[in-house]
């Protein structure tokens, strides 16, 4: 009896050892195009903003590099890219999102572009308290052929806390706390950081795949 129990425990331990790491991906996400494309670099375009707060575009844009780079991609310098668009008369995200993939590839040499849209950015005051919420969606497009490689969306609020534990996103969340230290008074910016981590980190269900600069490249 004792022996059977121990055998069972030993087996269970081994199973758990592997189960701890493997994130179950939802079946409906199709990674075929992503795996075929294997982009190395990502051009993050200034996000469209459908929220009333004009800070949304640059609040999100300035915080997209961290999760994407830590997931293993080269991320083109976002402020410099924005400046290049400006020098060419493209000053709104709407205009920029209209530029053809071929033209973007020609100038920036990136393998893929990330098109984001912010639908919620800021605080809603309710009777007893306020909730700060940031919601964004994203689409990754292969600039070599215009194919969509991945889409996703994420929301974070200031009362949701960080429920991410372990894995890349857990590490990023704890590392990020120091990142936004200088912006403790800008509550929405801090929430946008969490939205960005949830939206753009690899190694989570429905997330982007790890890129070539990650030790976990092609493990997913």
């Amino acid at each position, binding site marked *: 009896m004792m022996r059977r129990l121990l055998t069972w425990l030993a087996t269970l*331990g*081994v199973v758990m050892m592997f189960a701890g790491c493997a994130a179950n991906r939802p079946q409906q996400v199709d990674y075929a195009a992503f795996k075929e494309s294997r982009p190395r670099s990502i051009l993050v375009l200034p996000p469209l903003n459908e929220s009333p707060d004009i800070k949304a575009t640059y609040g999100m844009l300035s915080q997209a590099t*961290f999760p994407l*780079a830590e997931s293993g991609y080269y*991320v083109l310098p*976002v*402020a410099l890219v924005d400046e290049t668009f400006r020098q060419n008369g493209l000053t709104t995200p709407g205009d920029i999102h209209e530029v053809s993939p071929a033209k973007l590839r020609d100038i920036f040499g990136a393998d893929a572009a990330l098109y984001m849209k912010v639908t919620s950015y800021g605080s809603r005051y309710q009777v007893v308290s306020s909730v700060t919420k940031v919601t964004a969606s994203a689409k990754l497009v292969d600039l070599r052929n215009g194919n969509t490689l991945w889409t996703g969306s994420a929301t974070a609020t200031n009362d949701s806390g960080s429920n991410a534990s372990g894995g890349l996103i857990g590490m990023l969340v704890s590392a990020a706390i120091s990142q936004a230290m200088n912006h403790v008074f800008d509550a929405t910016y801090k929430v946008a950081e969490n939205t960005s981590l949830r939206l753009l980190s690899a190694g989570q269900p429905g997330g982007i795949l790890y890129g070539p600069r990650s030790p976990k490249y092609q493990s997913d």
Partner: protein
Amino acid sequence: MLKLVTLRKAAFMSAAGSLLLGGCAAPKPLYQWEGYQTQVYEYFKGESKEAQVTALEAGIQKIQAQGGAVPPGYHAQLGMLYLGLGKDEQMAKQFQTEKTLFPESAQYMDFLLKNASRGSNAGNSGATSATGNTTKESQQ
């Protein structure tokens, strides 16, 4: 009995192993960020470029001292700030460093450097041309 001991040992080892890996041993960051994103946000908000340069330069010192890796875009961001302050040579150096660290950036960095040299040849301050005016290019 001997078998039982071995099994017990195995059970213990595997339980310990699963605890060890269960949280999926938190990965280490690939880069030492040193407030890169904060400085990018400062730039977008139109804050002082001198202060951003000081912060980014101090960050590089810290990364080098601690043997960390500079994140993508960091040197390019610094280069752009140098350009805004009229320090064209330092700008070019930063763009070159970005390219060396991240060959993925080569095409864009070359594009910027080409624009910068053309800007200075034409007697411009370079500030507008180096960040890449493609219409100028197509007129040639």
